[in-house]
């Protein structure tokens, strides 16, 4: 089975938001609807126990979601097990799945891991079930706007999250510099403002915004349908050169500091300690902004939409689908597992959004309600709430859905290695292009 899916897609979040219907996330505003599962194990009533493995800590939403499912379906028992979503955690899940540990539902957080599981027969084909469920048929193969990862034209998972990247801005620093931001900005405008906000020990941004992903969209690392790598495309070298220039101009944090402080993992610390003025990031950062006990800070955080190439917007947005729910092919409770997956998708959003995850299906919930749930109580003390609503929900995004994952892990490792070398000054950009192309092509060839 090939890792390359048959469909390359773009789809809009509005498409995702719509259609959850009566049973949808109207629950966010207090409607506690039951999924009223049919075809349960005894006379239409669901019974039984499920083992669910996910990477989000239980207290960040999954525990409450599982409890809600149990309450909605008396006679069921859901046990949620958290695995850490890193190399060893994923291996633990994989060995458990292949070794026969009774896991019924599992969640994959990267398409590469998902396809590894799918291509080894560990997940059930959900295509028919998705097609037959009005709220979820957008995720089935053949939908007008493909919104899911497919393998050989089949859907073996369903994405619970559609996570946009936005820019977190230190409002105080902005005011100090007398800069007024509009409702949107281009990549060049963002990068210019980052330079303007730099100085006095403050870096304008963690890193400049690149153009490769916005320009190339899905599968940007691959050429010729996945047979070759795409790093010889000049846009990669331009992005890398921009990072070097920003580093040299002290407008972005230098790589030595990034490595020494492990900032690729702990980006929130430099933003909340006031060492950078702006942070382009996914929205999980909101959790840390709210946590003033652990990250004390006295400024308001404003959100801006992710920069675009053109003023009127781009073909592709910086939004990623994720949190892919699958049913274990060896599960003995597949019917109950499917009802649980449906519940997670359709009603789970209200439990998970507070943990910083924007649900793929939001039903009838308004952007204002979603933003309020995301930012939590007393949000005004640390957030410019309106700006978050605008940045997250102001414009319909076109999500680039990757379809090729050949040697994805190897390419990521090679990419990090050579990019570090350039940013540390031991390799030139030209040499980066040559080495990246050679090694990534070799990794692709070896994986075939």
């Amino acid at each position, binding site marked *: 089975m090939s890792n390359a899916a048959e469909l390359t897609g773009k789809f809009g979040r509005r498409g995702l938001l719509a259609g959850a219907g009566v049973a949808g996330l109207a629950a966010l505003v207090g409607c506690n609807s039951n999924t009223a599962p049919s075809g349960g194990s005894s006379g239409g009533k669901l019974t039984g126990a499920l083992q669910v493995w996910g990477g989000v800590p239980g207290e960040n939403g999954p525990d409450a979601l599982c409890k809600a499912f149990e309450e909605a379906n008396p006679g069921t028992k859901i046990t949620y097990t958290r695995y850490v979503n890193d190399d060893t955690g994923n*291996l633990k899940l994989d060995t458990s799945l*292949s070794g026969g540990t009774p896991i019924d539902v599992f969640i994959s957080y990267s398409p590469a891991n998902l396809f*590894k599981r799918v291509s080894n*027969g560990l997940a059930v084909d959900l295509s028919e079930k998705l097609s037959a469920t009005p709220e979820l048929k957008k995720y089935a193969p053949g939908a007008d706007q493909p919104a899911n990862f497919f393998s050989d034209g089949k859907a073996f998972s369903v994405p619970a999250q559609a996570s946009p990247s936005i820019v977190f801005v230190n409002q105080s620093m902005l005011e100090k510099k007398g800069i007024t931001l509009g409702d949107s900005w281009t990549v060049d405008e963002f990068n210019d403002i980052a330079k303007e906000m730099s100085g006095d020990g403050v870096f304008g941004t963690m890193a400049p915004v690149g153009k490769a992903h916005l320009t190339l969209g899905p599968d940007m690392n691959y050429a010729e349908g996945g047979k070759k790598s795409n790093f010889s495309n000049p846009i990669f070298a331009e992005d890398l050169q921009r990072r070097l220039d920003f580093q040299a101009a002290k407008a972005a944090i230098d*790589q030595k500091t990034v490595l*020494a402080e492990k900032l690729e993992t702990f980006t929130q610390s430099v933003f909340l300690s006031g060492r950078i003025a702006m942070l382009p990031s996914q929205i999980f950062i909101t959790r840390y902004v709210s946590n003033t006990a652990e990250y004390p800070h006295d400024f308001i955080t404003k959100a801006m939409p992710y920069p675009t190439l053109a003023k009127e917007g781009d073909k592709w947005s910086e939004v990623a689908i994720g949190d892919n729910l699958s049913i274990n092919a060896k599960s003995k409770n597949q019917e109950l597992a499917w009802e649980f997956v449906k519940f997670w998708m359709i009603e789970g959003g209200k439990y998970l959004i507070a943990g910083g995850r924007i649900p793929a299906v939001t039903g009838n919930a308004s952007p204002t309600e979603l933003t309020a749930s995301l930012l939590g109580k007393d949000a005004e003390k640390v957030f410019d709430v309106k700006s978050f609503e605008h940045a997250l929900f102001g414009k319909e995004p076109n999500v680039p859905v990757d379809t090729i994952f050949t040697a994805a892990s190897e390419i990521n490792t090679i990419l990090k*290695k050579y990019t570090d070398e350039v940013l*540390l000054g031991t390799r030139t950009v030209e040499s980066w292009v040559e080495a990246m192309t050679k090694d990534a092509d070799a990794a692709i060839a070896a994986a075939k």
Partner: protein
Amino acid sequence: MGWLFVLPNLVGFVCFTLVPLLAGIGIAFTDWNVVSGLSGITFVGFANFTSLLADPQFWAALGRTLLYAGLGVPLTMLGGLVLALLLNGPVFGRSVLRLVFFFPHIVNSIALGFVWLLLLHPTSGVVNLGLQAVGISDPPGWLVSQQTALITIILITSWAGMGFHCVIFLSALQGIPTELHEAAQLDGANRWQRFWTVTWRGLMPTTTFLAITSTIGHSQGFGLIAFLTAGGPGDSSTTLSYFMYQHGFQYYQFGYAAAVGLLSALGTLALTAFFWWFQKGRGLYT
């Protein structure tokens, strides 16, 4: 009846050592990604080994491992020996000092690594601030420089291991009969001659033991490397252990990773045999 006495230990050995060892050797000759389960194991003969031998990354990692062990083992042992010789004499606060030097050995390696990360921060670490204070305007990047990352890790692991070596050397020093020193002194041997003919030879079995265990430890060195540099920057601190981890845990090439492990184990075994052969006839009692 004798079998019953050895059975508990035998069961543990078979289950937790012998079977995994044989399985590891077997996997080295297969193509296996774990996710496929046992049914997905494909026998590939020596293909993993031939690929390895043609893989420049493997040779680079081997070179770094030889540097890591070749510099780290003697440095740790020498440091441990010097400390032991000092603490074996009349030193004020000897017991406290022994504890102080042994302390890094018992501290969690992640905690230890974290402290060094702070100390060696390129711009705000105490070490570089100190160097700048004495006029070195461009101090090393330590863990974030390709030129110095591996050397820095060697220094940290050596520092952390010295205390353990010191304690073992100390106990060995105290086992050397004082009569031998007295006799050598009566025969006119100077301090260096007494050390070389009595102390060093008396320490030979201990030195061999520490050389073997330390070499094995360095060939398996992973924790601090993973935490401090994750094999980087670039791949400047990717030793064989980390290379094996990458191929196993990140790329799911378990056959390839097992082949690395097997070659690494054979290399360590050869070095162990060498140490054993080398010490024969050179000690006081051998």
